[in-house]
């Protein structure tokens, strides 16, 4: 689960990590009410779940109240990579003396939380990682000891020279780790972490992701969740035991198992089609899941053909066939559907489907080719 920059800022502040003063606004009126008529330089930042908002014009400086109002009115409602900007963060701009990067992530290889830090902070950190990986300091954190004070200080000494900055950064790293662990985070970045001209160490921009599997024990984080229409579909699907991600193609697919679903999408592309979605109905044999899945698939107006690919293991093919028959009785559709059933009770399932007149094939490749052909 992702949150907005302003929400990450709120968490930082709650854990004592210094951030510039600021607040989120949903309307131009709120900006007008918030910003006093002073000479403070401010920055107005679009709050959307999309990268590259700076290049898209979603980040603007404001030298006056009038400026702030004007820029906020430009940014609010703007479209960034398909996301409409509904909120802006209005924050005091600070005089930056130097930019740094610090981040925490769950690392598959070390099976631990890894702390990363670099004196080359700012937007180009990914470029730094590629070109000069030696400039990224990495530390694998022992989960039972946690981030020890001396470790945080050792990292801070690699970034800063002035002991005042070292102490401030040590403190920030410890607090970021605490925040990370206590919220079941999977990614927490401060980029840039800066030294201001006044000598303060501060988090200017932040990003946090959270473990969906741990949301059951993270009510405060869950309360921050904001979803787009597409994401809502994915969440609804999830609640029905389905894993669904909408894509832009025209071949809807329904598969059991994530790996097989991905392989199915690959197959569609391999034969020149474009998948309309990723849809995994999971391992159960409940016909209702098939009905729900078909409803989702056929509700997508981009879908021109549907490919059903089931390998029966725990899932029984006759159950899938049964669900499909009920679904097709409920949802009358003209969209062509190709069915491939293999494995447990495939024979029975295929027998049941005969009455529906749906085209059935025996391999994944055939199914993909047939679906593409029918979609044209």
């Amino acid at each position, binding site marked *: 689960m992702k949150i907005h920059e302003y929400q990450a800022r709120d968490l930082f502040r709650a854990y004592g990590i210094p951030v510039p003063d600021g607040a989120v606004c949903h309307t131009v009126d709120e900006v007008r009410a918030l910003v006093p008529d002073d000479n403070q330089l401010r920055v107005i930042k679009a709050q959307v779940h999309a990268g590259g908002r700076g290049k898209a014009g979603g980040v603007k400086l404001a030298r006056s109240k009038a400026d702030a109002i004007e820029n906020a009115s430009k940014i609010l409602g703007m479209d960034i990579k398909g996301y409409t900007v509904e909120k802006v963060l209005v924050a005091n701009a600070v005089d930056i003396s130097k930019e740094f990067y610090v981040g925490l992530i769950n690392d598959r290889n070390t099976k631990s939380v890894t702390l990363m830090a670099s004196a080359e902070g700012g937007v180009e950190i990914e470029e730094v990682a*590629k070109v000069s990986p030696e400039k990224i300091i990495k530390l694998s954190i022992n989960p039972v000891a946690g981030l020890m004070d001396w470790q945080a200080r050792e990292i801070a000494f690699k970034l800063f020279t002035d002991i005042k900055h070292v102490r401030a950064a040590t403190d920030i790293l410890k607090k970021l780790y605490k925040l990370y662990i206590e919220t079941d985070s999977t990614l927490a970045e401060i980029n840039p972490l800066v030294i201001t001209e006044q000598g303060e160490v501060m988090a200017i921009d932040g990003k946090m992701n959270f473990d969906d*599997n741990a949301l059951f024990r993270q009510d405060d984080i869950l309360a921050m969740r904001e979803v787009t229409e597409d994401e809502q579909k994915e969440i609804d699907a999830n609640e029905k035991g389905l894993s669904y991600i909408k894509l832009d193609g025209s071949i809807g697919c329904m598969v059991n198992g994530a790996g097989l679903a991905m392989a199915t999408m690959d197959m569609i592309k391999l034969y020149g089609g474009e998948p309309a979605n990723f849809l995994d109905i999971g391992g159960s044999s409940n016909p209702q899941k098939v009905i729900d899945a078909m409803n989702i698939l056929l509700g997508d107006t981009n879908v021109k053909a549907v490919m059903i690919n089931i390998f029966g*293991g725990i899932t029984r093919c006759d159950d899938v066939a049964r669900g499909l028959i009920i679904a097709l009785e409920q949802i009358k559709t003209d969209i062509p559907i190709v069915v491939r059933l293999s*494995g447990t009770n495939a024979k029975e399932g295929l027998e049941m489907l005969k009455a529906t007149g749906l085209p059935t094939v025996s391999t*994944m490749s055939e199914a993909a080719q047939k679906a593409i052909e029918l979609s044209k």
Partner: protein
Amino acid sequence: MSILINKETKLIVQGITGRDGAFHAGKMKAYGTHVVGGVSPGKGGQHIDGVPIFNTVKEAREATDANASVIFVPAPFAADAILEASFAGIELVIAITEGVPQQDMIRVMPFIKQNGTKLIGPNCPGLITPGECLIGILPGNIFLQGNIGLMSRSGTLTYEVVNLLTENGLGQTTCVGIGGDPVAGLYYQDLLQMFEDDPKTDAVVLIGEIGGDAEEQAAKFIKEKMTKPVVAFIAGQTAPPGKRMGHAGAIISSGSGTAEEKIKAFGDAGVPVAKEPSQIPGLIKSKLGL
């Protein structure tokens, strides 16, 4: 021969009185696995389907001398169940449960390492040595005894591939589903080493996915350490770039994680990568000179 499990394996089922635990305990028994006990706190002393139930893993281990445990307990309690098995001295723990929080698994790791426990999963379908022992939720009927080792991050895709192997007369020594979670137990390298050391295994099939760099690490390992042929398949070659990873994701994996990079890594290691699952049996046969 085989790796990890065989005819001698004695299994207990943690969460045996739950819906999934009870169902699959029955299936495993039917396949021939020695299901010697189950654990369900408060049901100790009872039996289910002839299998004795214990309150704790320690009791179960002491009474049955079990050396493997399969975990079906719900996600919030799965990490604790792994620890209980590990501290009770169970050598091989297979966690089927999906949805285990990542921090829980990170906290488990130092202890299972310290205790010398081998962990598979969580969020995995289990493993099978065909004709000898099945642990987990794999459909036993599609497997065939033979000389191919298989490891996979996915479930049904594995069955798809195994079915193709079996249809082509390519039986398996052991097939292991390592699970799809970011923080998991045994990885490709661990299993590759075991297959390399297993005299019965002649070739290995590796089924990977996009994301992370487990496949790149495996390719490196194969290049440096493996003498036996390996054939790979990567699912998600055409999936849109991962929506969930930020800067740090790119940094930590040093730019890897895409299908292209994985395919390139395997290419460098002399490992042919199938374009679609149906090519796998052919690639294996040509590697084995069949």
